[in-house]
Each structure stands twice: as structure tokens, then as C-alpha cells.
């Protein structure tokens, strides 16, 4: 009984403590990106996918994740970065995203997993106006050991209108 209340207190205190949160970072074309670690369900190796017809190129297809059908997004293609071959470090990060009040599971293909960092809310800087990559996916920029980490707003990744739009332009 007491342990339960302890853990709740712990949660509350970590919440109040200047909202710092943990981020899992990964590499994509030499840049380091971060996602909220609480959204990460698992990390698995790249495997073959089943293609879905008439979808934008960055939707690689779907995989069987222990009985669930999970779409896989190639983040390079999503960000219009140049394609590289999938290698031994290529991994799929399975994330839980919230979209239109619905929670979905999606996998993103990235070059490699990097590290886990604590980033305090104060250390997060708003993104400048990029122009070339979609800013809507970028939550902010943080500096860790003189490196820049771009934190992503993953909920927008599988935004259905965005997909519908690009499906229209690709055809």
C-alpha cells in the first residue's frame, strides 16, 4: 500500500521538477534527432515489409508486430533527405503516436539509435524558420555536449491529412 503512494508521489515530484524529460535520440543523415522516450515502445531490426498500394513513398509498408499490423515510415524519405541503403545499424523504432484522439503504433526507420538524454524544458529552444524541412515535425532544439539534438513532434508524423495530400501530389 505504502509503495503505491510512494510511487505516485515520485511521479508528482518529477512532474513539478522543471519539466525535464528523457529523450531517445537517433541518427539520420548525420543529424541527431530525439523523441520522447515515453512514446517509444520498442526498437527492432529492419525486416521486410508488405507494401501498401497507393501510398506515399515514405510509407514503406506494414509489418506484423506480434499480431498487430503496424505501418513503417522511412524518416529519411519523410524529411526528403537523400536515400541511403539500409545497413546493419538501420533500425525500426516503434512509437506510440496520438492522432485525432486515437493512439496508434507506428514504426520509423532510422540510420541508428544513439543515446538517451535528459533534457530540461528550459534547454529547449524553439526551432528557427527552416524553409526546407517541415517545421511542423520539429518541437525544438536542444544542445547536449555541444551537439544539437532536434526533438520531434511525432504525433504529426502520421498525420492523415498530410498523407492524403502527398498521395495526391505523388500521383
Amino acid at each position, binding site marked *: 500500500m505504502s509503495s503505491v503512494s510512494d510511487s505516485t508521489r515520485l511521479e508528482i515530484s518529477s512532474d513539478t521538477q522543471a519539466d525535464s524529460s528523457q529523450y531517445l535520440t537517433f541518427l539520420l543523415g548525420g543529424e541527431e534527432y530525439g523523441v520522447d522516450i515515453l512514446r517509444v515502445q520498442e526498437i527492432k531490426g529492419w525486416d*521486410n*515489409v*508488405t*507494401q*501498401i*498500394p*497507393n*501510398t506515399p513513398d515514405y510509407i514503406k*509498408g*506494414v*509489418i*506484423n508486430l506480434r*499480431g*498487430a*499490423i*503496424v*505501418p513503417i515510415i522511412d524518416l529519411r524519405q519523410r524529411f526528403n533527405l537523400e536515400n541511403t541503403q539500409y545497413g546493419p545499424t538501420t533500425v525500426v523504432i516503434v512509437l506510440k503516436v496520438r492522432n485525432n484522439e486515437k493512439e*496508434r*503504433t*507506428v514504426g520509423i526507420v532510422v540510420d541508428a539509435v544513439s543515446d538517451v538524454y535528459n533534457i530540461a524544458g528550459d534547454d529547449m529552444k524553439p526551432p528557427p524558420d527552416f524553409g526546407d524541412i517541415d517545421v511542423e515535425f520539429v518541437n525544438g532544439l536542444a544542445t547536449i555536449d555541444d551537439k544539437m539534438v532536434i526533438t520531434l513532434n511525432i504525433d504529426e508524423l*502520421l498525420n*492523415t*491529412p498530410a*498523407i*492524403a495530400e502527398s*498521395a*495526391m501530389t505523388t*500521383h
Partner: protein
Amino acid sequence: MSIDITQFHQTFFEESFEGLDVMESGLLELDIGAVDSDVINAIFRAAHSIKGGSATFGFTNIATFTHAMETLLDEIRDGNRAVSTEIVDILLQSVDCLRDMITAQRDGEENDQERIDQLQKELDTLLGKEPGKDVSKQHTEDETGVENALPSEWIISFTPQPHLLKTGNDPALLFRELQSLGDLEIEADTGKLPPLAEMDPESCYLSWKLRLRGDAITEEAIREIFSWVEDDCDLEIRNASSEVRGGEKRETEKTEERVGEKGAPPKKPGKKPLTPESSSIRVSIDKVDTLINMVGELVITQSMMGNLDGDFEDFDHARLEQLREGLSLLERNIRELQESVMRIRMLPISFVFSRFPRMVHDLSQKLGKQINFEMSGEQTELDKTVMEKIGDPLVHLVRNSIDHGIEPPEVRRQRGKPEMGSVHLNAFHKGGNIVIEISDDGAGLNKERILEKAREKGLIEEDCQPSEEKIYELLFQPGFSTAETVSDISGRGVGMDVVRRNIRELGGNIDVTSSEGQGTTFTIRLPLTLAILDGQLVRIGRETYIIPLISIIESLLIAPGNINSIASKSEVYKLRDEYIPIVRTHELFGTRADSDNIEEGLLVVIEGDGQKAGLYVDELLGQQQVVIKSLETNYQKVDGISGATILGDGTVALILDVEGLIGMSRRPRGNKAQQEERAVA
């Protein structure tokens, strides 16, 4: 030692709702006048269990209330009191009230104490406990209020949820309907409107405050108009002219819609719990026994195969034979086990049908029509999920039959028909489907009027003379209604299109047959279960797809001489004495097949929506049962694909949506048309 009694609350609520359903259907049977002791005993038992249960859990108000009902029922049972319409009506009202009380208890909401007291007094009056003159006087006063419905003014606040438009409902249509009742003032609240850039054109951001003035407007009439959108909005209806009476009336006149809500009636329509659908399931003991037997067999097979284990050095032919036998036994056991597990989800359709007698009873009284309502095939089983979703469309169809189909008694007499109209609800299994028929012996569909109306609404061209089938098809267009007078029961044309869409979502379809003057029959076909499908595995290029076996007619080698082209674009295949279009699935999907030369592949002849087509595939693989998984859980709907499944090797295969593919092949390539259609839907 103390037991946490609250863990049993859920069971009590479920059992009580079931008990209430029993009471309700029993009371309706009593209506005939003669007292059947079996029926009255069943009602009494149900009331008694509710009383006992509520007293155990300390819900004293429910217990007290039920006690009064029970006493009355007891007197009827003992023959000390004759059954009159008045008694049945009061008991029915009490059942409704009780249902609200239990719901309130479950959701932790406030009871409508006024109404409870009122009914309690009426029950007491009947029992002769407390003559209470003022009570009966007050009662008659209310009655007149309800019956004559004085000039009234209603304030309606209508706050749709954002997805309202996607369900095919149009607020403007509703308002036009309201306008037909009286003077309507509309005030829109645009406060929630986002900036243009962020706006989703398919979402509804507006809410409205409506003021409706007019003679003899009942709250029920207003509610009927909103009945199809009720689940998708917050609706509050206040009587500005007399607050008190309005409030009271709301509670008593909610009956009808409440009948529609099996098990989980909302206390206030405006505050519906969002997910009333998930709940427990009652499984008959013999189904469980079958399961246990199956598992027993599995264990036996396993030990049989276990005997084969051991020394593999001298693994001879005899053992191999045994192993093979064991495997086939295992396969059979597992298939049977799967079937029995699926049967657990199957419930008799009487769960849906049971609400209809009450509805028909109320409706026929209100419309002054005599209806002989028959049901058959109540024991037909279907999947629980399908059942939950088929209720509302059925209600709508039965209402339509009674309101539009069956003529008033005097008209029927003139036409030489019996005054009593009949409506028949039937369910049966056919192939892999369950078929539900709603037939009436009413006026039938008037083709001329449908055409006229369709032209008026611009649904078809002026000089177009469509076939009978196409005419009936028009009924399912959004915004179509041929009712001469729009009644509060049906005829607003916000119905049939929604009915069809709901049925299609379940993978079924709906047909109409009608002969003028003789009646109309609506036939709904639904898949037995949404979870499993017999599929044919085919390969196109590198991908494996699954075609539902039920839609395959035959598969054939392509004979080059039978391929013809139309306008050098569309291809048709001569299949015996008919021409069927060839669908090149890989082109629709933007993938590659083995070869562009169609003669090297196979043609799978499929039928969907009454249309045949030949699907080009590279290779036929095996047939197997597949478990359907939704793509929409984590992704979204994909045209031409109805779902996905996982094959034996762990990879994902997509299940083809036959109707969708035929539709896609008819449209020019490119997604414009589809996207527009999706936007409309």
C-alpha cells in the same frame, strides 16, 4: 473478514438490465388482456431479483420502488387484480423509470426524484395504500399538459461533435425540419472556429442555439428530428414556456429512444457515455463445455504424438504414418477449437429483436395503425460486434415500414386488404451470411414518385429512365425522402443512406424488392463474423494477396482469343456467353506483375455488388482461413484493401476488397475521384 461488495455491482447492473428487458417484453405480451401465468411469473421473478439485489447492495431507493411494483404484480399473479391497460402502462413506465434509476446508480448520477415520486405515488394509488386526491389531480393535470401541448416555446442548444458531418448528417437539413414545426430562430456560435489554415473542412466547429415557437410542439417531435445525430452531439432541449412540465415530460417521453439502448441507457441524452459498446458477454454453459471437450481432445492428441518422440534412430515408416495421422487429427482439433471459440462471440439475434415489440406497440398507437408484428428466426446467431451495430439500422427500417409502408386502416379497407397491417422481421443463415428481412404488406414503393422526387432533387437527369433496380437504389441517396408528409417518425431523408453505410461498414449490403400495393421487403446480408474469412491466396508480382473465397466464382487460364478491348483502353474477357471487365490489380496498385503480357497469368472471376469482373493474378497459392486484422487500427483505410492478415510465415498479406477494386477499375486512374468521394463520405 470483509468482502468488497462493489466488485459485484457490475454484475448486478447487467442482470438488472436483462431483468428489465424480460419485464418489458412480458408486459407487452400481457397487453392482450388475458393473463398468462407463465408470463406474469416471469415478470414477477425479474422484479423480485432486482429488488433482492438492490437491497443487498444497499440501493434502497431502487429496492423500495421495485417493491411497490412487485406488490402490484403479486396481486395480479394471485388473481386479485385484473390486468388493465392502465396497469400495464404504469408498469411499463415504472420499468423505464427503474432503468433510469439503475443507470444513474451505475454512473453515479442524480436520480430524477420528482418522476420517481410521481410513479411511486401512482403505484401506491393503484395499490390503494394512499388514495391521495391531490396526487391524482396533479396527475391528470400533467396528462392534459402532455396531450394538448399548449402553445410552446423551446430552447434547443445543439452542439455537434466535430465528426458530425462525416456521419453524413447535415445540420441545415435538421433545421429545415425544425422549421416545419414552427417559427425558428437560429443563432450560431462560431467561437470554436479555428483559423482558416488549421481548419479541417470535414469537421464541424459550430454550435447552435435554437429557439422554436409554435403550437402543439412536443418535445418528442423535436427529439425525433435529432434522433439520428443524437450520438454525435450534445443536445439540450428546454421548454421555455413551462420549465417544470417540460422537464417532467422529457423523462416520460424518452421511452422510445431508450428502448433502442440495450443495456446502457443514458440518463440524459445530452451526456451519453462515449463507449457504451464494450461489456461482458454471457455464454451458455454448453458452449463452454464444448470448449473444454475440445481442449481435452487436444491434450489426447498431444500425448499421442508425444509417444512418437524418443528414439529417432529407428524412425520407420510406421511411425511416420502415425505422425501424419496425429498431425491431421491436430489440424481437425484446432479447427474445431477455433470454431467453438468463435461461437462464444455469437449471440442469438433476439438480443436485437427483443426491443421491437415495444417500439411497434408505441408506434402503432401513436400513428393509429393496426400492426401485426411477427418475428422469426430469433435464435439465429451472429457476432456480437455485428449485432451491436445492426440495431439502429434495423430500428430505422422497421419504423419506415410502419410509418410509410403500412397504410392507415381506412385506406387498407378501401384497397381490400385486412385492416391489420403486418410487418415481419425474419433472420436466417444462408451460406456464410446472415440474412435479415424486414417485410411489410403495405403500399409498396411508388416508382413514379421516387423518380419524380429524384429529378426534383437533381439526383438524376430529367430524361433518364433508369431500371427498377436503379430506382430503388435512389432511396439510399443522401437527403432523399418520398414521404408525402414528413412525420416525426420518418421521412426526413437523413436515414436510408446512413442505414446503408452502417451495413456496408459491417461488410454487408442491403437490397429492396417491392411490388406496388403488395408491400416492400428490405433484405440485409451480413457476414457471420468480422474476425475470420475463408481466403484464396494469390500472388501478384512480389506480393501475396488474399481474395475472400466467397466472392470468387471461378479461376481460369487466360485464352488469348477471348480478350477484347473496348475503345482500345478497357479490356473485357469473353466468359462463355458474357463479357466481363478485366481488372489489372497491379496497375491499380501501382506495383508490378511478373509480366505485362496478360496471357501468361490467370484470371480469377470475382463477383461483388452484383458485378462480375476478372482479376488478373500471376499465380494461385493455397486456400486458408485467415484472421482479419484492421489496417485502420494503426494506419488508415486503403482503397481496394479491406484489411490485412498474418500468414503462416509471419509476414503480412493484404486482403483485397472486391467491391472496392471493381469500383476503382471503373474510375479513371488517379485518385481524384476517390478522394472527392471520401470527402463527401
